[in-house]
């Protein structure tokens, strides 16, 4: 079974530039998460979807970040105008459902973003 696939693996930007991250979850997983993992910290939820619907985006900086999952499969996270504080690893994860024991997350390898 294929795992969660993310691209690109690395990105280096100047402040003010835009970047997009792509995620292909495990087939059949209806829930998809985007996490931000700053250096030396645990993953912090940005947004998550069930199918194509956004369930929680309360931690997503809406002025510069956006995320979509138009067909309930692949997802794209975009940063419109990057800041140095966005430097982190961006992790995508999927799971077969929400609530209880089904919430085991399967993570992709992540995209390591450096904003200079």
């Amino acid at each position: 079974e294929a795992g969660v696939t993310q691209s690109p693996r690395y990105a280096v930007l100047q402040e003010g530039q835009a970047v997009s991250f792509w995620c292909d979850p495990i087939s059949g997983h209806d829930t998809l998460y985007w996490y931000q993992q700053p250096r030396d910290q645990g993953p912090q939820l940005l947004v998550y979807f069930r199918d194509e619907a956004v369930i929680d985006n309360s931690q997503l900086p809406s002025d510069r970040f956006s995320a979509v999952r138009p067909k309930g499969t692949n997802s794209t996270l975009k940063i419109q105008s990057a800041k140095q504080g966005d430097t982190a690893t961006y992790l995508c994860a999927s799971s077969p459902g929400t609530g209880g024991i089904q919430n085991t997350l399967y993570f992709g390898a992540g995209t390591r973003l450096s904003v200079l």
Partner: protein
Amino acid sequence: GDSVTQTEGLVTLTEGLPVMLNCTYQSTYSPFLFWYVQHLNEAPKLLLKSFTDNKRPEHQGFHATLHKSSSSFHLQKSSAQLSDSALYYCALTNNRIFFGDGTQLVVKP
């Protein structure tokens, strides 16, 4: 609100000694608890998770017991191996998943 606390940022020990990584939590409801492990330059992956029937989960020699009275889910192993060196995250879930800040385990020869 829900939260997870891992008190140790770094644990260093010698191969063969027992391991105990602390995890306590706060939750409005009865959550499920998880331990995830992240090796260098890899994604986090599930190590073990709590059960609803109070069974003790075990995997790769690690085990953890959910103590609701003390809101704890400490990770333990009787004998550390060099390959156990990694970052360990405790997490809880209700509808959302909350991660602790992680404990870096370094096992030395």
